[in-house]
């Protein structure tokens, strides 16, 4: 099934690159969404992936694949809105859609990979395919962000590859096993060379930190957010960060059967804490609205990394946190596209009275703020609560208090800028010259926010089952 999916995707991408007609683009993208939904539904209903040693459809992968399918459908809709107000040449539009299709397919590949090498190949493919998307607006900022993103990301993934090679070397002495996430746990307890495993894990985490957006390589991720077209930023901030999380979490689950479990937790705790700290520090200086939200993503990924480190109920909470974060963050970025179109700027101090201009959009921003800052009934309240309570019971009380203080600070900054946008003063001239925007364009983000709240109040049993399955392999 996976093979036919990739053949279909390559076919669609080739057609999109060849034929640059607008109607044809709309039809192909619809067809692509159908293919993506088809694959997802087939795998959810228990279909097999084919290629047993390379791909698998386990619960962890399926949760995030389903998220990706939802987000890619809304992103493609918003991409058409975004492109309809620009006068790009047909070739320029065709680069956008071709890259988008390959990008979504590579992320699908990461979620479904079982073989470690295959996962690396797809992770690198996400970097390469997103380059033209970040570069779409072709400004000098765009070229700078694109260059930094692809260079640092490729470099980081080279480090991950060194880590993967070291892992391969350290297991090769302890019996035959396939080099897959499902095959290696059988031989890992026999590996005695702790230092090799440690070096391998740290290199892998450093590499995938570009994708996940945690310290140390999160900076290029922020640059990419701030210049990419808003629908693409929504993808970078949600699905691509999930890619990084899934990659790191798979290695974490696999290595939890080895001698370095406690050490790995400390590494993740430090990286997660530093991510939150850096997000809090840089939020003070931020003047660009998209960078502001990008730092908020870094903060959320920091919380997830801390959750991964403390364990117990926090593993469960980390996954739920990502699920809800995905819906909210993409909703904000779609709304952001409208705000930027209206005010023709990304600078926070030139934006104001948005509630007056567009009440529906204002409601989206208020809802998003409530969910993002963890005010009940937001699901992020429950997940953060679970992570903090397991930090207290796990003996990380000091870190928990520090993280809470930083979170207060971050929420204060977010509130300041969000409410400035909604009700703050702005020159009358800007409001009068703004572009009329149809209310229907806010529909996708409203749907996503409703989904986020619905999942917070009543997570469906199938999702809970999948989440329990995803963390079942971890030690109790």
């Amino acid at each position, binding site marked *: 099934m996976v093979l036919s999916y990739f053949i279909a995707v390559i076919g669609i991408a080739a057609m999109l690159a060849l034929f640059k007609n607008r109607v044809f683009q709309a039809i192909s993208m619809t067809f692509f969404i159908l293919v993506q939904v088809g694959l997802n539904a087939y795998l959810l209903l228990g279909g097999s992936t084919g290629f047993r040693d390379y791909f698998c459809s386990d619960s962890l992968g399926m949760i995030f694949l389903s998220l990706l399918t939802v987000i890619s459908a809304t992103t493609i809709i918003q991409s058409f809105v975004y492109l309809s107000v620009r006068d790009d040449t047909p070739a320029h539009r065709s680069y956008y859609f071709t890259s988008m299709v390959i990008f979504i397919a590579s992320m699908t590949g990461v979620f479904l990979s079982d073989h470690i090498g295959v996962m690396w190949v797809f992770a690198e493919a996400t970097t390469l395919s997103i380059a033209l998307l970040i570069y779409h607006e072709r400004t000098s900022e765009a070229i700078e962000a694109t260059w930094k993103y692809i*260079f640092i990301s490729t470099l980081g993934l080279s480090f991950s*590859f060194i880590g993967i090679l070291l892992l391969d070397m350290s297991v090769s002495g302890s019996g035959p096993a396939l*080099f897959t996430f499902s095959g290696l746990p059988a031989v890992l307890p026999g590996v005695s*060379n702790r230092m090799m495993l440690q070096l391998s894990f740290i290199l892998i985490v450093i590499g995938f930190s570009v994708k996940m957006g945690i310290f140390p390589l999160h900076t290029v991720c922020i640059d990419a957010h701030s210049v990419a077209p808003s629908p693409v930023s929504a993808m970078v901030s949600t699905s691509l960060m999930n890619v990084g999380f899934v990659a790191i979490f798979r290695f974490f689950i696999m290595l939890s059967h080895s001698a370095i479990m406690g050490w790995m937790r400390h590494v993740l705790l430090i990286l997660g804490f530093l991510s939150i700290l850096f997000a809090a520090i840089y939020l003070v200086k931020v003047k660009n609205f998209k960078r502001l939200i990008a730092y908020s993503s870094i903060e959320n990924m920091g919380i997830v990394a801390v959750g991964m480190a403390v364990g117990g109920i926090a593993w469960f909470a980390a996954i739920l946190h990502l699920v809800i974060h995905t819906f909210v963050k993409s909703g904000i970025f779609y709304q952001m596209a409208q705000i930027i179109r209206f005010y023709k700027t990304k600078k926070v101090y030139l934006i104001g009275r948005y509630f007056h201009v567009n009440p529906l959009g204002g409601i989206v921003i208020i809802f998003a703020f409530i969910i993002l800052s963890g005010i009940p009934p937001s699901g992020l309240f429950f997940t953060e609560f679970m992570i903090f309570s397991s930090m207290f019971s796990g003996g990380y009380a000091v870190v928990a208090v520090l993280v809470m203080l930083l979170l207060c600070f971050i929420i204060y900054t977010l509130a300041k800028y969000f409410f400035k946008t909604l009700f703050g003063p702005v020159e009358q001239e800007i409001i009068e010259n703004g572009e009329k925007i149809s209310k229907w364009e806010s529909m996708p983000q409203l749907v996503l926010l409703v989904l986020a709240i619905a999942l917070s109040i009543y997570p469906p049993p199938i999702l809970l089952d999948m989440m329990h399955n995803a963390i079942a392999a971890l030690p109790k």
Partner: protein
Amino acid sequence: MATLLIIIFVITLFYAAISGRLFALINLLLIQGGLLFGVALIELREMNTVNLIVILVETLAFKAFVVPYFLKRTIRKNNIKREVEPYISGFNSLIIVSVLIILSFILTFSLKQNFRNVIYFTAAFSAILTGLFLMVSRKKIITHIIGYVILENGIVLLSFSVGNEMPMIVNAGILLDILVSVLLFGFFMSRIRYISKEFEITSLSKLKD
């Protein structure tokens, strides 16, 4: 025999540190590709056609010809000045690269491997660290790409000492990824001329908080 080639490989790293001309650095990549091909040929346990083709493509065709040719073309097309322009002088670079190689020895010995792996590991880590050093100590963006290719050469050397190798299809995917990444680097580097004539990394400093 393989050991000899690996020692020559490490010597090329010293040359990379002092070389002042871009074309000399790129020719160095050609030599490294040839050396890697030699090592791969000697290390090959079972000689069959598929293995031979993969190694030929990976080391000789790709590392020694496609990438250097492509980099030279990019330099010519963009009229980049053909000097390396380091932040750190050649002599100091030489000292730093020597220190990096000693560090690789220390790292390798603390990993407790057998003797054969020690040689490979040291050479590989030296190349990886030297590649990184070239990136941070040179002004031009093209030297960053050269540094990246040297780093990739180190990774190839490291992958020779892995016991159970990746399946062919995975190897092909990895190779394709690296090829596309180098091509993309070249493409975006030539775009940088629209914002700066210098092709120096300092021209990329607009995005910050």
